[in-house]
C-alpha cells in the first residue's frame, strides 16, 4: 500500500461499491501506454514481454498508489491478429500501416479462429501479463484491460474513412463486419475476465467528433449492449469510455448497460453528472495533454480540484480519472501531484470546504 494511504485500492473499491466510508476518493489516472516510464522502459520494451508489461504496472502502482493497474491489449489488437500490418515504433503505440480488409464485400472471408487465444501470440502475452500482475499485486489493487469496443475493432480491420462511407453506401456489410468484431471481442473479453481483469472498453472511433448520434445508435449502441450483456454473463465488470466530444451521446452510452462510464476532457463533467450520474459511477476527466503532459504540478492540482468540485456529489459516485489514456512523455511528478491532490481534496469524508 502507498505510504500516504490508509486503505488498499481493493478495499477502497469495495467500500465505494457498497457505499461504505473510504480514506479518500478513488483515483485512476489511466497509466497505460506510458507505464514503462516508471521503469525507464520505452513503449517497445514494455510491449515486448508479459513480464515487462506487468512490471511496468507494478512500478506505477508502487510509486503512485493509483487505484487501477492496466494491461494494454489496445485498440488495434483485433485487426492486427487478422492481418492488418502494424508499425513497430520504439517509443509510441504502433500504428496501422495497412488494413487487412480492402473491400468490405470480402467480410465473409475474415477468419475468426485467428482471434482465438491459442492462435494469437500478442493476445497470449497480454493474458499472461494480466496473470503475472494479478499474482503480484492483485491482493491490493484491481487490474483492468484497455481494449477496443466493436466500432474501433472494425476500424482496425477496414480503414475508418471507408467505414464511414459504408454507413451510407453499404450498411449491410458494415453490420456484418461489426457483428464479426463483436463475436470476436466476446471471446477475447472472456479470457481476460477469466484471468481476473475488469474490462475497460474503449471505442474512440465511435467518438461524437466522428459519428453523429444517429450513426452511434445504429452502428455502435446495439452491439455494445450485446457485449455488455455477455461481459455480465461471464461475471465481468466493465467501464465504458469513448474519446473526444461525446456530449450528444452520453445519455445513450449509459444505456449500454456499462457498470461505469468514463468521459473525455472534451465533455463537461457537470453535464455528465446530470445526464448519467444517477445511473452509474462516472470517471473523468483531467486533460491528459494540456494538463498532465504540457502542464506543471500547479495546473494538475487545480484541475483535479475542479473535477472533484464538479462531480463529487454525483448520485452513483465519482472516480477521479484522466480524460484518456496517458501516452508519451508525461512528467512523472505530474502524476505524483495527481495522486497527492486526490488525497488532499478527496480526503474522506468529502467536504466541499476542501475544494470549493
Amino acid at each position: 500500500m502507498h505510504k500516504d494511504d490508509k486503505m488498499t485500492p481493493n478495499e477502497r473499491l469495495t467500500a465505494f461499491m457498497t457505499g461504505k466510508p473510504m480514506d479518500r476518493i478513488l483515483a485512476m489516472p489511466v497509466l497505460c501506454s506510458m507505464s514503462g516510464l516508471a521503469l525507464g522502459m520505452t513503449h517497445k520494451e514494455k510491449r515486448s514481454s508479459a513480464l515487462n508489461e506487468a512490471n511496468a504496472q507494478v512500478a506505477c502502482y508502487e510509486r503512485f498508489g493509483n487505484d487501477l493497474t492496466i494491461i494494454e491489449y489496445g485498440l488495434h489488437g483485433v485487426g492486427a491478429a487478422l492481418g492488418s500490418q502494424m508499425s513497430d515504433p520504439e517509443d509510441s503505440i504502433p500504428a496501422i500501416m495497412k488494413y487487412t480488409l480492402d473491400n468490405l464485400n470480402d467480410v465473409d472471408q475474415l477468419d475468426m479462429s485467428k482471434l482465438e487465444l491459442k492462435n494469437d501470440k500478442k493476445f497470449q502475452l497480454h493474458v499472461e501479463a494480466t496473470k503475472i500482475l494479478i499474482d503480484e499485486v492483485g491482493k491490493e489493487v484491481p487490474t483492468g484491460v484497455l481494449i477496443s469496443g466493436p466500432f474501433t475493432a472494425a476500424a482496425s480491420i477496414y480503414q475508418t474513412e471507408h467505414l464511414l462511407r459504408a454507413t451510407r453506401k453499404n450498411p449491410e456489410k458494415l453490420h456484418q463486419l461489426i457483428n464479426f468484431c463483436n463475436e470476436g471481442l466476446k471471446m477475447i473479453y472472456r479470457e481476460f475476465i477469466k484471468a481476473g481483469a475488469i474490462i475497460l472498453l474503449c471505442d474512440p472511433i465511435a467518438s461524437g467528433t466522428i459519428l453523429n448520434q444517429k450513426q452511434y445508435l445504429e452502428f455502435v449502441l446495439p452491439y455494445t449492449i450485446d457485449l455488455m450483456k455477455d461481459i455480465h454473463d461471464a461475471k465481468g465488470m466493465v467501464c465504458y469510455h469513448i474519446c473526444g466530444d461525446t456530449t450528444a451521446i452520453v445519455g445513450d452510452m449509459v444505456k449500454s448497460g456499462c457498470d461505469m462510464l468514463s468521459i473525455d476532457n472534451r465533455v463537461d463533467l457537470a453535464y455528465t453528472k446530470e445526464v448519467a450520474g444517477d445511473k452509474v459511477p462516472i470517471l473523468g476527466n483531467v486533460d491528459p495533454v494540456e494538463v498532465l503532459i504540457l502542464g506543471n504540478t500547479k495546473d494538475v492540482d487545480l484541475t483535479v480540484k475542479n473535477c472533484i468540485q464538479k462531480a463529487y456529489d454525483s448520485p452513483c459516485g465519482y472516480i477521479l480519472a484522466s480524460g484518456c489514456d496517458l501516452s508519451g512523455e508525461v512528467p512523472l511528478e505530474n502524476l505524483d501531484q495527481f495522486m497527492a491532490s486526490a488525497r488532499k481534496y478527496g480526503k474522506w469524508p468529502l467536504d466541499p470546504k476542501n475544494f470549493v
Partner: protein
Amino acid sequence: MSASKEELFKRLSDGVVDMEEEDVIEACNEYVEAGYPIFDGIMDGLVDGMNRASQLYEDEEYFVTDVLLCSDAMYEGLSILRPHLPSDEAEKEKIKGVIGVVEGDTHDIGKNLVKIMLETAGFEMIDLGRDVPLQSFVDKAKEVNASFVCMSTLMTTTMGGMNTVVDLLKEAGMREEVKVIIGGGPISKKFADKIGADGYSPNAVEAVKLIKKLLAIA
C-alpha cells in the same frame, strides 16, 4: 432545349450538398455539352455546394461522413469539368500548401477534411499522406514553393514531430516564407505557441479561415 446555366449551377450545387454523385455527374455532362464557361460551373456549382456543406458542418448539421460524401460528389464533378478548362485558367498559379500526418501516425481523416476544405477554398494542396517523414514536409515545401504547411496528428507520442518540422524549416532558412498550421486530437493553441507554429485550428472549417488570415487573403 438544354437547361439554363443557372439551373445547372443549382443542380451541381445541390448534388454536392445532397451527396448525390450520379446527379452531379449527369449535370456536369450536360453543362459541358451546353458549352457554358467551365470555370463558372466549378465555382458557382460544385464549389458553391461544398461551401454550403461546410457551413452545415460548422452548424453541426453535417458530420464527418456527410462531408466525405459531399466531397466525393464534388471530386467526381471536378474530374469531368476540369479537363475542359481553357488552358489559361487551368494553368493559373494557385497558392500552394503542403499537408500531411506526421511520422509515426496514420490517422488521416482530420487531415483529409482539412485538405478538402482548403482545396474548395481555392488552394492547391500537395498531400504527403500519412506517416510522413518530417524532412519531407520541408523538402516538398521547398520544391513546390509552398506558402504554408499543415500538419496533423491524433497521437500524443508523435506531436513532437511538429516541433521538429518547425526547426527544420528554420534550419533551411524557410521559416519566414512558410506559414505553419497544426491540428489534431491532442493539439491545442498552447502547443502551437509552444513549438512556434503560426496557428492552431480545432477543425477543418477554421483551418481555412486561419490560413486566409495568416496569408492576409480576404
